[in-house]
């Protein structure tokens, strides 16, 4: 049985773990930590190829899993640092996190159903429309990766031959992208790669795009989940929405930006 990993489906390491637990049909209260860790690491291998920031939280979980695995190998006396008493299962904390997350994951699915029901009702002057054109949803890294993987997969089947690469660098590609966005601002994600059938080129283009997004020079938006991802030149976007908070300063909290100490209305 082929083991197909679709990292893009997951909302983070806990989600991925839940999936693996379900797929291997094991008891969430008695996780066979060795085999799940192995499956988890295999899933990560796909992502690691890209060396992306997003892998950070996944890597942290990998470390946690390995730590738990090693703890379980130790004889119980040595694992307790001088603290006597009953041993706690090294998996306990992880299990309770998984259960907690699962609870909200399911609640989110119910909310999704409520949302689609509510969207069958319309009212006068519903304001949402002007937002739609812009694509109100900021594309998450996961969605971007999904789109990227699709394109990579297509490229692999289309062009199996690799010809000796000339010098490709991300810096040049960034400049090219900026130029291209200046000409044609909402640009569909897939079209970014239309003239570069080779895997290396696609990767370089993608890295350039990520850099632009990180620096806030472009933004990736879509109208709804699974809708085409559109890349906007940021300047233009800011002019049309007048939102100054669009270029996210890393690590700065949303709350701190707008209202210092403001009491809620």
């Amino acid at each position: 049985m082929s083991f197909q990993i679709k990292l893009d489906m997951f909302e983070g390491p806990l989600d991925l773990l839940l999936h693996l637990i379900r797929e291997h049909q094991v008891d969430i209260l008695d996780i066979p930590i060795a085999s799940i860790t192995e499956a988890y690491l295999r899933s990560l291998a796909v992502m690691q190829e890209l060396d992306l920031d997003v892998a950070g939280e996944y890597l942290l979980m990998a470390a946690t899993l390995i730590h738990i695995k090693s703890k379980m190998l130790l004889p119980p006396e040595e694992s307790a640092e001088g603290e006597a008493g009953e041993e706690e299962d090294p998996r306990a904390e992880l299990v309770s996190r998984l259960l907690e997350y699962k609870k909200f994951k399911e609640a989110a699915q119910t909310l999704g159903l409520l949302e689609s029901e509510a969207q069958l009702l319309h009212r006068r002057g519903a304001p949402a429309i002007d937002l739609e054109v812009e694509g109100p949803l900021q594309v998450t890294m996961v969605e971007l990766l999904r789109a990227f993987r699709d394109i990579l997969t297509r490229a692999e089947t289309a062009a199996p031959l690799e010809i000796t690469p000339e010098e490709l660098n991300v810096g040049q590609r960034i400049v090219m992208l900026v130029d291209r966005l200046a000409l044609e601002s909402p640009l569909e994600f897939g079209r970014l790669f239309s003239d570069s059938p080779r895997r290396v080129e696609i990767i370089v283009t993608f890295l350039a795009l990520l850099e632009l997004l990180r620096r806030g020079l472009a933004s990736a938006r879509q109208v709804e989940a699974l809708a085409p991802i559109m890349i906007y030149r940021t300047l233009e976007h800011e002019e049309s929405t007048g939102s100054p908070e669009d270029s996210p300063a890393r690590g700065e909290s949303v709350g701190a930006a707008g209202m210092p100490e403001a009491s809620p209305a």
Partner: protein
Amino acid sequence: MDGEPDRLGILEALLFVAEEPLPLGKLQEILEDADALQTEASLRDLALRLEGEGRGLMVQEVAGGFRLATRPETHAFVQKLQQVKPARLSRAALETLAIIAYRQPITRSEIEAIRGVAVDGVMRTLLERELIRMMGRKAEAGRPMLYGTSTQFLEHFGMKDLGDLPTLREINELIRAPEEEAAGAVGPEQSDEGPADAPEPAREAGRTTEAEPDEPPASSHN
């Protein structure tokens, strides 16, 4: 209606004009001659009348008030008029919202602890769309911002108030769930591609009939 409009007519007019759901108290205040019970009864009457006459509108109770909304059966046609499909929230947004809804007021790092991923981007989107709001600061080191859901949240999901939130499945229910899900995944009735992702607590286990294959398993059609 000639002459004096009746109370139902007035209510209909008010709901038609209002841009936000109108709370019962506000309606009663405008009507002047009715108490809360009577006003509510009239609203029910109006709802029944609209329904009885096969109208395209209905009275919807949402976000602490009442409003006129189109009937779900007309959705496909209204959609043609509007051309743009309403935006659905991403899974990340829904998960984050769920956590905020059930645990409010809650800080960003508390949300991140549950989801296991950073939520900066999602939170920004939710704030932009006014589905969540800031509720002050938590009295702890760093005084982090506390978030909760907004009226817009109730409207978006068609809820009267937070009491309409579906009950969270409790931990011991969840513990049983993996087996059910796993059983469902290998079961013989998995040929249709319904939203198998959403585990339904009410689904009866072991009801595998082989006799009538043309009867699809009753699931909510979207």
